[in-house]
């Protein structure tokens, strides 16, 4: 019984990481039909954001609040990755709608650039750049209300650019002074230290539940519920679904389809940022962190059935439990007297690498039987 529970928990732990990473992809790929190979790199940005936020919380002023930096990081990471995603959509993806193969290649190019960007540009400057972009975006909104600049849009635009640049440079300069570790560009991985309460385990008799895993499972549930609510209960969610189902008709009905595209992509990218925060609790944070997850994410989406949130949930849970059962050789524990030949087979696959091989091979096999995933969309296929 304990074994079953333990396996379920471990499966849930592995699966929840996959799911939170795949959630944004499920939206972008499932609803927009866009293959975003830079999704992993958007996660990486989220992980780096966690590092920067953590560095702020190590300053004397914020030190007492260190335990809570993770909550700030979740919000900021969503904004950072969301903003980068938004820029990506406006500048590149928009030109490529209806050409998924080209999108795939373009986003791969973006992922290379993002990777090399964090290697060569000091975090202090990246932070400044992000702040400047946020100000430049928010400037017109605020300026419109405050100073009645509505009549002179050029002045407003110029003003917000100037303010944005000033804020960016000032912030970068200050960070360089205050946090020397962020002043140097480096290809090295950075150290994200979880606060004390997030590091231990929860003792349940002879069984310890790792707290980071619990937090990630919680965060994943929260994210899934939020996405579900956003898509099915909010106005913009309704618009997104409408555009997904019939773009031309939605356009005729006055839905701003371009804004919907940008919003969908932005939200999907933002979720990648949140996944980045989660991942930083488990492993290292470096330029390559995204590559570890990207194919797994796509498998979750494809296996679950494109455009199906619950499919992704079931698929990631399934992959998680299978990985644990195969990788930790659980069958041997349940059935110690199995025939020698079978035992050899189980042991052959009971390593992390072979578990991966087997799980992926199984996915490909499942797709043979159900080419559209476990939960295919029924009825008339949506047209992009």
């Amino acid at each position: 019984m304990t074994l079953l529970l333990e396996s379920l928990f471990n499966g849930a732990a592995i699966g929840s990481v996959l799911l939170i990473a795949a959630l944004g992809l499920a939206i972008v790929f499932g609803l927009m039909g866009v293959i975003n190979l830079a999704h992993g790199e958007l996660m990486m940005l989220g992980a780096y954001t966690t590092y920067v936020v953590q560095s702020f919380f190590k300053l004397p002023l914020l030190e007492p609040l260190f335990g809570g930096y993770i909550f700030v990081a979740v919000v900021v990471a969503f904004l950072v990755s969301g903003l980068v995603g938004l820029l990506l959509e406006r500048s590149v993806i928009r030109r490529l709608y209806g050409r998924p193969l080209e999108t795939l290649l373009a986003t791969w190019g973006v992922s290379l650039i993002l990777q090399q960007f964090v290697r060569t540009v000091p975090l202090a400057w990246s932070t400044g750049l992000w702040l400047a972009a946020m100000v430049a975006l928010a400037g017109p909104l605020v300026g419109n209300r405050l100073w009645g600049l509505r009549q002179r849009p050029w002045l407003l635009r110029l003003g917000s650019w100037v303010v944005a640049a000033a804020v960016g440079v000032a912030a970068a300069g200050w960070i360089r002074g205050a946090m020397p570790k962020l002043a140097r560009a480096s290809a090295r991985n950075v150290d994200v230290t979880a606060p004390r309460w997030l590091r231990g385990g929860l003792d349940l008799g002879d069984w310890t539940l790792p707290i980071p895993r619990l937090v990630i499972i919680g965060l994943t549930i929260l994210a899934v519920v939020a996405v579900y609510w956003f898509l099915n209960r909010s106005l913009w969610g309704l618009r997104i679904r409408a555009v997904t189902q019939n773009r031309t008709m939605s356009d005729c009905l006055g839905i701003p389809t371009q804004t919907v595209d940008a919003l969908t992509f932005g939200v999907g990218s933002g979720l990648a940022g949140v996944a980045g925060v989660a991942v930083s609790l488990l492993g290292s944070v470096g330029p390559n962190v995204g590559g570890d997850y990207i194919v797994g994410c796509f498998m979750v989406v494809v296996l679950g059935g494109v455009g199906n949130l619950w499919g992704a949930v079931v698929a990631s849970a399934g992959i998680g439990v299978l990985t644990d059962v195969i990788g930790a050789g659980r069958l041997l524990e349940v059935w110690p007297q199995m025939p020698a030949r079978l035992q050899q087979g189980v042991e052959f696959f009971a390593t992390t690498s072979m578990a991966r091989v087997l799980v992926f091979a199984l996915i490909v096999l499942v797709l043979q039987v159900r080419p559209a995933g476990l939960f295919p969309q029924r009825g008339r296929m949506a047209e992009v």
Partner: protein
Amino acid sequence: MEFDDTVAVGILHSLSGTMAISESTLSEVEKMAIEEINAAGGVTVDGKSHEITWIEEDGASDWPTFAEKAKKLIDQDQVPVVFGGWTSASRKAMLPVFESKDAFLYYPIQYEGQECSRNIFYTGATPNQQAEPAVEFMFKESPVAGKPFFLVGSDYVFPRTSNTITKAQLESLGGEVVGEDYLPLGNTEVAPIIAKIKNALPDGGAIINTLNGDQNVAFFKQMQSAGLTPENDYYVMSFSIAEVEIDTIGPEYLADHFAAWNFFQAIDTPASQKFTEAFKAKYGEDRVTNDPMESAYNMVYLWKAGVEKANSFDDNLVREALIGVTFDAPQGPIEVMPNHHISQTVRIGQVTPDGQFEILTTSDGPIAPQAWNQFEPSSKGYACDWSDPDKGEKYLL
């Protein structure tokens, strides 16, 4: 300073990719050693002083690229020597290149042994200079002395071979290995391994860790949250964690675990402090030094000494001259042995909360290197001696 001539050497480490984290420090420290030598008058051959310059190539954490760039340095740039490599896989990829072109590689990392190339000088530790004393320490003196062992490593040649040796050694010591598992390079999902360790070692024990680079981060973070901590009698002895890695993993996760090296930054001798201070002055006060860096630093000086003793840049003359060369290294005196390895001092340290090591034991003087392992049955009784043409790579003692 006026020089009569220049000589260009090759530097070949990963400046990009997963290994860049560790390997770029070697390239930095090699350049520092070269600059120090130049400041002291360069290399003198035939009464002429040579300024050392370097040609640097990026191995890009990719073994075929290492082979390609090694070819380039040898054929295209005609360098007399290449300082390079980190992973055993990269060394194994470069070995055929250096042997087929009869060129010269200096390799700075502790490794699994079972190799003794005529064309490579190994300035890192062999298993009997790191792994074996470390395992013996865990079995006899550590807080988990006598408890069973679990072996964890990245899935490539060094962990696999090193663990084969460890198993043979523990068998002869009377210890018990209850499990081993390997994580593919680039994969950081360690949950199944943690589950296995928990099942195999219900009451604590010693874990021998040969994971590489950033996989350690995931491993130690999740060990701690699964409750596999020193307080609960789970002690990890790592072969690839030094001060630089502590800096990126975070000392919170590593405190009280062990590591075995020849050099620690905490060594309290003038030579050691001078080395660390020079590095900090050049690359930043917040930087740290570690064993692979010390080894990379030493090998540049050893090469210089070999060239000056041979009075030539010619590979074959330097190769012969190098044997017997001594150097007062940051770790203490070292000497090049006939098997192209180096006699070094062995130390075992415990991680302190401030990210350094507390040195627990130090061997009585330098220990002679064994290229061929004496626990592993297939190589037992063999040795390597390049000073005698009849003995060479592998001969029966």
